[in-house]
Every structure is written in structure tokens, then in C-alpha cells.
């Protein structure tokens, strides 16, 4: 369970998160939508402790992310995150990209790590590309590799930050299919996305962010068909 409690976060003078409260249950898929600069990416990087917070707290399975005593390297092993772009390690093959962390972080042997990596890469449809370098992959394939790489650590949670928004339109589908497959397998996920059809389709709940505030959260049918907050209405009208 991920518990976000009254989280405030500023970059200098700019308050980017203004008191976020959100609890994500095990197995739940929550998508986050909202305008540019509303703090969506920042929230994800706070959840895995890449960014410090100014106020409030975030608990992952009861462990406070930003507590001094927390071993972040350990905690991050159960939180996979995939960014918008620049995810691939260009000097490593697809297989090595995926085996690196299991070997160096979990101390797994080569054979075991490769078996897991191959399984995960097949899972995302990259079973044929093991010895290819990422620069020879399409953007969509690179994103799927990044997903496999995160999954190889057997995380309990996956965070996705607009993983399709840097892709050519014809490549978006294959990546969204992969996310959908994960959701159906019961992975606990928080997905920041601009793909409204996807959000409607896979989410248990959809959160709408507006200028650092979670203006509204609800099941997809409610949020998309009967938005309560005027800003949500404005936003949905603008993306339709």
C-alpha cells in the first residue's frame, strides 16, 4: 500500500505539490491526469525518494520514504519506475540492461539473472532482441525494455510517467498494451498519462491534478462522465 499524506514540495519559490493525499491499495491501478506543470512527475519521483519533500509523509508498505533511517536503495527495489524517455543504458545490450540491477543490486548470479531477464523481455515482446543495443531499438521497444528492466527486480509497485508521450503515434499502442497486460495481472500501478482512453480503460481510479492540488479523484466512469470540479471539466473539454 502506498500512502501519500499531506505532501508539500517546492522547487525554490515554486510550490509544486500543495498538500497531496492519496492512498493506493495493493492491486489497484490509479492513473493521474492533469495539465503540464501540475506536479504529476514530481509526485512520482517523491514516491520513490528521488526527490525530497518539504512536509507530510509518504509510506510504502508502512515504511516512511523520506525518514532518515530508511534505506532508499532497498526500498526502491520494490518500486519500479519508468520515465518518459532516456531510460535505456546505451552501452549495454537489451539483455544486459535488464540483468544489471538484479546482478549488482540483488547480487544474483549471471545465469539466474539472465533467465529472469529473458522471461521478462519475452513477456513484453522483446524475446528476439536480447543481444541488440538499445540505439537500434524503436522508441516503443526501448520503453518496453525499460518496463522489463523494472519488472526484473520483481517490484511490488510500478510507477509510469508518461511512458508514451515521447513516442511516434504508431508506437503508442504497443506500450499501452504492455501496461494493460500488467494491470490485468494485478500489478499495483500509478500511471501518469495523457492517454484518456487508456486511463478510462485500465484504471480503478483516476486522479486529476491541477496546479499542485489533487482536484478530484474517482472511478473512471464518474470522473470522465460526471466531473465534479470545474477545472476537471475544463481540462477534459480541452483534451477531447
Amino acid at each position, binding site marked *: 500500500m502506498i500512502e501519500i499524506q499531506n505532501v508539500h514540495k517546492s522547487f525554490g519559490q515554486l510550490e509544486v505539490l500543495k498538500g497531496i493525499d492519496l492512498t493506493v491499495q495493493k492491486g489497484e491501478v490509479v492513473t493521474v491526469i492533469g495539465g503540464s506543470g501540475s506536479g504529476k512527475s514530481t509526485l512520482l*519521483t517523491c514516491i*520513490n525518494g*528521488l526527490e525530497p519533500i518539504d512536509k507530510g509523509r509518504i509510506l510504502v508498505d508502512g515504511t516512511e520514504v523520506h525518514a532518515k533511517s530508511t534505506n532508499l*536503495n*532497498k526500498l*526502491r*527495489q520494490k*518500486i*519500479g*519506475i519508468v*520515465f518518459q*524517455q*532516456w*531510460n535505456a*543504458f*546505451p*552501452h549495454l545490450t537489451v539483455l544486459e540492461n535488464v540483468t*544489471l*540491477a538484479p546482478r*549488482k*543490486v*540483488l547480487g544474483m548470479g549471471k545465469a539466474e539473472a539472465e533467465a529472469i531477464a529473458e522471461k521478462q523481455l519475452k513477456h513484453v515482446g522483446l524475446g528476439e532482441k536480447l543481444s541488440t*543495443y*538499445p*540505439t537500434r531499438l524503436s522508441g516503443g521497444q526501448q520503453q518496453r525494455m*525499460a518496463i522489463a*528492466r*523494472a519488472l526484473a*527486480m520483481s517490484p511490488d509497485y510500478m510507477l509510469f510517467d508518461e511512458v508514451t508521450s515521447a513516442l511516434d503515434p504508431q508506437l503508442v499502442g504497443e506500450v499501452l498494451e504492455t501496461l494493460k497486460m500488467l494491470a490485468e495481472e494485478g500489478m499495483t500501478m500509478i500511471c501518469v498519462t495523457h492517454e484518456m482512453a487508456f486511463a478510462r480503460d485500465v484504471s480503478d481510479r483516476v486522479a486529476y491534478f491541477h496546479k499542485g492540488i489533487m482536484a478530484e479523484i474517482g472511478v473512471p466512469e464518474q470522473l470522465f462522465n460526471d466531473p465534479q470540479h470545474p477545472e476537471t471539466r475544463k481540462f477534459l473539454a480541452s483534451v477531447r
Partner: protein
Amino acid sequence: MFGYTFQWNQALARLPKMLDGAAVTMEVAVLSMLIGIALAVLLTLLRLSGSRPLKAIATTWVEIARNTPALFQIYMAHFGVASFGIHFSPFTSLLIGITFNNAGYLAENFRGALKAIPDTQTRAGRSLGMSQLQAFRYIILPQMLRIAFLPMTNQMVWAVLMTSLGVTVGMNTDLYGVTQDLNALTFRTFELFAIAAVIFYIITKIITLGARLIASRLFRY
């Protein structure tokens, strides 16, 4: 011409000695590069560290190495430290001087290379549970060394040529030192130094060609 008769045979008879000297020159150059690269990585880490004193040490090193004559650096490593009662052999002094120079130049090259690597690479590594040092070691360092590979090759060539400065601290076993001693013995100045120049040239060519070969083997992405 100018009353000087070339006597190549007399000079060529000394070739084996000069080749021994070339081996010592290579030894100094290779050692100074290996240690220099390790030190440059360390200097790079110090400069990335949050600590002001550590940053200052690294920056001072790089500034001195790059903005003073290499001759001065080698001289200091021998006669400079001797003022404090520390006495190194000419070989050691030369090695220290060139290594100091290499480390400074390479650290600056590494700094430039780092700028070309997006910091999302480190973030991606940290997100997978790696420590800062692991992310540097497994993700940043290999990419940095690739980007800096050409400057590293140039520095290696430069290190070979810098060994000739060893004579100022009494080094006489390297190619230049050997040549100078032979010259004092035989006075075949032009012939001896011409042969030495050719040997230097061949060494540096082998380095550049070898580096190209290594690069094509190593960097397949």
C-alpha cells in the same frame, strides 16, 4: 654539405640500445596513463562530490596540471620535493610528473564527457536500487570513457613525448636519455636524433592505430 659527413652505420649500430630506451619510454607512458586514468576518475568523483574542500583539491590539481609547463611539473616532482628531503629516482620523478599531468588533463576531458550524459541515466540507475557509486561505476563511467576515448588516446601520445623531459631530472634510460648519452659518446648528433625521432613517430602511430582497433572492438553500440 657544411663539412658534415653522415655516418649512419655508426649510429645504427646503437639501435638496440635505443630500442631498450624506447621500452623504458613505453613503460613510463603506459604506467602514467593507467595511474593517470584512475586518478582522473577519482578527481572527477571529487569534483562531483558535495564537499567544498575535496572539490577545491581536485580543481587545484587540474588547474596546475593544465596551466603550467609539463617540464615544471616533472622538475617539481624531483628537485621541488627534494627541498623537503624527499628524494625520488629520476624514473619515479618522471613517472610522477607525467602522471600528474595526465590526471589533470584527463579529469578535464572526463568533465566534458559527463556533460554529454543526461542525468536521467543516474536517476534510472538509482531507481533500480543502485547506490550513487554503483550508478557511476556501471552506468556513467563506461559511457564517459567511451566519449573521452579519443582525448585519452591523444594524452597517451602526449605522455610518450613528455618522457623526453626526463633528461632534465637526470633520466638516462628512456629513449631520449639514451640518445643523448650516445650523442655525447659518438657526436653523431643528427643521425642519432633522427633515428630517435623515427622511433617516437612509429610508437605514436602504433598507439593511434591500436586505439582505433580497440575502440572498434570495445564500443559496439
